[in-house]
Structures are given as structure tokens and as C-alpha cells.
């Protein structure tokens, strides 16, 4: 069971109050993209053993979308942050590096 801190309303929300939104920071590929790029955008997802970035929505709460960084092995939550960004905040990346030296997730390290 996850408990994620909603960065919008400040509640430490139980997983049953949240709706999962899949992988974070996907870059949309539109009609101008190659078939391979569009295929990857639609279907190819990370499935890491360790650090992972996801989207969640505080569905039975304030209703807002946000991001979460967690470890898929230990369920440790490294942090949550607002939805209106294209990459995790620098202080969160540093905090993850302190706990999981050498980690990598897509282009983030």
C-alpha cells in the first residue's frame, strides 16, 4: 500500500484515494513522427527494477494530477511534485542519487 503526499492539497493520501496515471514524462509524438517513434510513444514503457517515475491523480480528494518518484523494489517513495513540469526537480534527483548511487531511468540520472 502506497501513501503519497499530494503536492496540491497537502494530504498524505492513501493509495485507495488515488488513481494511477501510468509512466511520467512521456513525450508526445504526433502525426509528424516516424512510425517507429509513434509506436514507441504509444506502447513502449519502462519496467524498472528500482527507481521509477509515475503520474498519479488525487481522484477521491482535490482531484489534481501530480508526479511521484518511488522504488519498485522497496516501495520507498522518494518524493512527489507538481504535474506542470517535463522533468523531476533537481533536489529530488539529488535525493535519489544519495539513496541509489548510479541509478538511471530513461535519460534521468
Amino acid at each position: 500500500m502506497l501513501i503519497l503526499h499530494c503536492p496540491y492539497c497537502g494530504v498524505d493520501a492513501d493509495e485507495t484515494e488515488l488513481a494511477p496515471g501510468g509512466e511520467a514524462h512521456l513525450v508526445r509524438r504526433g502525426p509528424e513522427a516516424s512510425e517507429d517513434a509513434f509506436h514507441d510513444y504509444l506502447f513502449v514503457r519502462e519496467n524498472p527494477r528500482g527507481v521509477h517515475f509515475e503520474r498519479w491523480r488525487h481522484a477521491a480528494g482535490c482531484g489534481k494530477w501530480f508526479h511521484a518518484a518511488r522504488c519498485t523494489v522497496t516501495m520507498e517513495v522518494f518524493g512527489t511534485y507538481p504535474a506542470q513540469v517535463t522533468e523531476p526537480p533537481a533536489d529530488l534527483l539529488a535525493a535519489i542519487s544519495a539513496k541509489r548511487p548510479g541509478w538511471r531511468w530513461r535519460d534521468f540520472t
Partner: protein
Amino acid sequence: MSEPASALGGAVSEGFARVEEMPPRGMIALRGDLGSGAVKAAVKDALSLDLPGTWRATDAGEAAVCWMAPDELLLMSSYAQAPEIARKLGHFLAGEHHLVADMSDARSLFRVTGLDAREALAKLTPADLSPGAFTPGTFRRTRLAQVPAAIWMRDDTVFEVLCFRSAARYMFDLLTEAAARGGEVGFWPD
């Protein structure tokens, strides 16, 4: 003119806490920039109330302003006054980025009363209902068993619960079961 009717006709159940479906109440959704002076002034103009803090409600008599989200409030009034209040808000906020909608028929409202009303509700929600965290004036959207709902603590022994009207029967039965005699918890001393 047709008479407004609640979903369950004012159903009541008596357990270690009393569960009662409330008559229709005016409910107006207001979305906009809550930090802007305009929204604050519009609410003051319409209901003579200040904006509540996060997960709080301000109220006086039948009127209330409840915090729903960082950009959303739920305004309460008598059922009859709601259309006029919504009209006034829309007029006041003309030119501002906002949304006003009279949602009075969208939801059902219940009152759970009793010394242990808190314990009946705590069985049903992941929200922290402990006396130190959930105090009079707290208004919190959450989940009660399988449905989204909001819990408003009016005072030490009176809670109100809002849910979508389509879930009214489910909510009434759920609250009744949670408050049934024999199901007292006794975790928080009175």
C-alpha cells in the same frame, strides 16, 4: 412549480450514531483563481463569508463556503436561493476566468450525529479522522467505502457527508451499517 425532493425522502436510521438524509440544499460550484481578489470579493458579495483555508469550510446559518480543490469552492445556501446566488456570482466575476454552476441537484447530503459519529465514519474512509487531525470546520473530500464523498465536521458531534445523488442509497446503507449498535469501536474516548 415542482417541489425539490431528496433521493431518499429524508430517511433516518438510529444506531450508536444517528444517520439522517438532509433536505435538498443549494450547492454552487465555483472554480477560478482562489488567490485572486476577485473570487474573494465575489464570495463575500454573494454570501458575506470569507474564503476557507485548505480543507476547511466557513459558514454562517445556511450559507457555507467549502474548499474543494486549489481552484474550486463549493458554496452552500438554501435550495431556493441557489439560482440567484449563482447568477450574482457570474455577474460579479464577468471578465474574470471562472466557472459558476448551480449543482444543487447533483448531490445528496447526510448528517451523522452522536458522540461516536467520528468512529462510524472512520470505519469507511482512509482520511485521518483522529481528533487531533480532523477538527470542527474541517471539510475533506475523500472516499467512503466504494464511492467518492466529502466529510464536513460541523461540531464535535455533528458531521455532514456529501456524495453524488446516484450513490445516495448506497451511502445511507453504508452509514447505517457503520453506525449499527454492536459495532461501537471505542478507540477515541469521548
